[in-house]
């Protein structure tokens, strides 16, 4: 279906793809693996006509193509679901799907026939979407289905999925793979990018591994193991399980009492949350996304007003303090939404690394920014956290998704910390980087930092936490010691809010 031969693409300062070749057969799922910044998105962006290759050829169904833009690629039957969704939140599902490909009746949109087409596509591939729902109200998993339908609506038979599962909950991932199977069953061919090796082994027909822009290996799913793939990606042995010593908890650092928080629509999603996190321990919050995690974290960090109850940090009441005041206490926050809160896309890496401390004595004197000191600090952090970039004055938007996350983590995990609130810290990161960030978090714990970890990855919660609480409908459904916790018990708590064993 698709042949990519000897593609090279350079950006200022980096060769993102270096002589990359890849073939995709009809009905096949071809997984693309590689570290953050290895060049996966760049490669598929070229196939989708968003970038033009410097060298090399792309053939679709045996015919060489030169795409000017993604319209050309769509015309050749290529569809793509991006790492970041490209839907317009205020439009309905149907409107989003037909956008750019409007079905018209005279001068008017023919939404009815679009709706019928959407329904029939949805049925055919098991993609449940409601054409009349507003996209902004949908969960991430639903938005993703909309993206898929959108691609199929344009008659795509080559689908490119760039990290589709990074943002899904485990249940949604299962649904998603159901859809993928029905797609390939009906002859669609799929390029699938992910960092989750378990998924790769489950669905891939063939696997191509990129490292630093080059193909370092091709494998079939049968012959591969998680370990072998990880080692190939990173180029060294990867340890999956982080070693950590027994926690030695000290005084309580972070405490909430009957905390209530409303979401943007005014609905209370945190409904009386009590927790106590002590110095030197990691308290993990598990739960299906949408049970109040976002509002909880934002309220604790001062970004969202509380609707009731109190928050205490280091023995002081900090309810409804400003984010700055809370931060100055020594509380760091890795936000869940990277592009909305975590970075200013147009700023350089250096400016993003001092985003919340540009005003400190070290980086500014008498209100004037000390660019020398800022760059020096940035240089150090970039090296320490292994951010792959040509330089600290590169605009952060030019970094790969995973490397942007590393910048945020680097910023938040340094400084004189007392408490750390982390939400989805390793979303979209490769195995090597996950290992690194996990080690950093444990290091902080061992230095006496109180850590509140919110993650949709059960594995992450299980391997990092000392105690685990399950958030269900805005309150803690149960707290267990990590040592005694099992996936089954947590899963049950997450799904129902109670574990039968305790009743």
């Amino acid at each position, binding site marked *: 279906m698709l042949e990519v031969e000897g593609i090279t693409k350079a950006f200022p300062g980096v060769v993102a793809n270096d002589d990359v070749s890849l073939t995709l057969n009809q009905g096949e799922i071809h997984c693309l693996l590689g570290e953050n910044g290895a060049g996966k998105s760049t490669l598929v*962006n070229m196939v989708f006509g968003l970038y033009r290759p410097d060298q090399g050829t792309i053939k679709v169904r045996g015919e060489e193509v030169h795409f000017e833009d993604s319209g050309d690629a769509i015309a050749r039957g290529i569809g793509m679901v991006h790492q970041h969704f490209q839907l317009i939140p205020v439009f309905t599902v149907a409107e989003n799907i037909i956008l750019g490909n409007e079905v018209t009746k005279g001068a008017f949109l023919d939404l009815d026939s679009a709706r019928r087409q959407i329904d029939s596509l949805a049925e055919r591939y098991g993609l449940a979407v409601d054409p009349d729902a507003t996209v902004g109200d949908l969960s991430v998993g639903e938005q993703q289905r909309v993206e898929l339908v959108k691609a199929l609506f344009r008659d795509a038979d080559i689908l490119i999925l760039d990290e589709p599962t990074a943002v899904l909950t485990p249940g949604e991932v299962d649904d998603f793979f159901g859809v993928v199977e029905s797609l390939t069953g009906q002859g669609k061919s799929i390029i699938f990018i992910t960092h989750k090796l378990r998924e790769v082994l489950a669905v891939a027909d063939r696997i191509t591994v990129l490292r630093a822009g080059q193909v370092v290996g091709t494998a079939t799913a049968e012959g591969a193991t998680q370990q072998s793939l990880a080692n190939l990606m990173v180029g060294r042995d990867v340890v999956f399980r982080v070693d950590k010593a027994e926690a030695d908890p000290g005084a309580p650092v972070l405490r909430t009492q009957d905390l209530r928080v409303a979401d943007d629509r005014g609905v209370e999603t945190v409904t009386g949350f009590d927790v106590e996190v002590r110095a030197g321990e990691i308290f993990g919050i598990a739960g299906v996304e949408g049970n109040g995690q976002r509002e909880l974290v934002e309220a604790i960090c001062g970004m969202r007003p509380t609707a009731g109850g109190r928050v205490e940090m280091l023995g002081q009441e900090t309810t409804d303090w400003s984010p700055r005041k809370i931060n100055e206490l020594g509380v760091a926050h890795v936000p869940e939404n990277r592009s909305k809160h975590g970075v200013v896309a147009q700023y350089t890496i250096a400016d993003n690394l001092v985003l919340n401390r540009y005003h400190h004595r070290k980086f500014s004197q008498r209100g004037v920014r000390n660019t020398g000191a800022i760059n020096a600090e940035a240089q150090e952090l970039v090296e320490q956290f292994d951010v792959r970039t040509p330089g600290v004055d590169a605009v952060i938007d030019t970094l790969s998704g995973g490397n942007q996350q590393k910048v945020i983590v680097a910023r938040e995990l340094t400084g004189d910390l007392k408490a750390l609130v982390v939400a989805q810290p390793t979303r979209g990161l490769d195995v090597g980087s996950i290992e690194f960030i996990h080690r950093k978090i444990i290091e902080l714990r061992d230095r006496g930092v109180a850590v509140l970890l919110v993650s949709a990855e059960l594995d992450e919660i299980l391997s990092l936490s000392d105690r685990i609480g399950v958030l269900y409908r805005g309150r803690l459904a149960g707290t267990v010691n990590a040592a005694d916790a099992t996936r089954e018990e947590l899963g049950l708590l997450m799904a129902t809010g109670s574990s039968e064993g305790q009743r």
Partner: protein
Amino acid sequence: MNGARNANAGVGRAASQIHRVLTEAWRLQPLYVSLYAILLSFVVGGVLISIIGVNPFTAYWALLRGMVGGGDEIAGSVARSVPFIGSALALAFAFRAGLFNIGAEGQLLAGGITAAYVGALSWMSDLPGFVAIPLILIAGTMGGAIWGGIPGVLRTKTGAHEVISTIMLNSLVLFGVRWMVNSRDPVVLRDTESTVPRTDSISDTAVLPELVDSQPVLHVGLFALVGICFVVAFVLKRTTFGFEVGTVGLNPHASHYAGINVNRVIVASMAASGAFAGLAAASEISGTNGFFQPGTFFLMGFDGIAIALLARTNPVAIIAAALLWGSMLSGAPLMQQEADVSIDVVRIIQAMVLLFVAADAIVRYLFRVRELDQSPFKATSIEGAM
């Protein structure tokens, strides 16, 4: 048909050649759209002039001499341009904070009337010039700052969009000052001895020293406004406050997360914007007019929008853009006199400049230049842009 296409291709080639020289040799990359917009507008304007039956070169030659034909012309052009610097900064600064301040027109009036009022206070004449002049300038600046700050406060307290509220405030202040200056019963600020509606003349001690006795007078206000541009450039580029302004402008959500007081930045940026307009107005009252008339700043605020966009909101480029703008207006009468082309043609050319700058896709297409940023990530930040 074929010939036309060839000609078109030829123009395209020439254009991309110009583009190469401009960007590579002069390093004017960020401003090229503006330069082409000016070029294009003059070409279209020339076509217009020849349709009227005048040789466009004759007309433009007269315009040019009216702009910079001699010492007096140059001084007059510069003098005409000075207030535009302030009204353009009023848009540019707020723009950096993500705000669209189209209230410079009103902020000029607010600053102007305050300056005229303070300048005409009876005790001003007892003060030495080095006290009276700063006082009148500060008064105007404050007047503008307050009038600019109000929409900022409204935005943070009630969510009222600054575009709407600045338009409303423009009308409010316009009718307000008209009444104050017109009314004879009660007398508010009207100079009752004058036949035209105007305020009392300001004290001699509050008059800015003159540099050249041109038409209009070139006065020391020039240094104040040019100086402010460099100050603003420094503030935006090098200070923590400038960093906060830029961060709020690019991503208010991330700013909030990073501990920046977004509301404070919005109010401060709007007030600062108003202050620049107010300073421009005060310097005009003090250096050029000596009193306030409601029509003095007519359209000056809206011209400021065009100038700021032409300069891509770069404070230093604003100086150049304002000079071009003011001298075109200052040179137009000679064009009318000599070539019999109405002054309005200059206005039309200016309107086209704004159009081409705003719709830069036209320019990019004609000059075969791609957008600077081809990143596919660009379209993704719908959320971030909100």
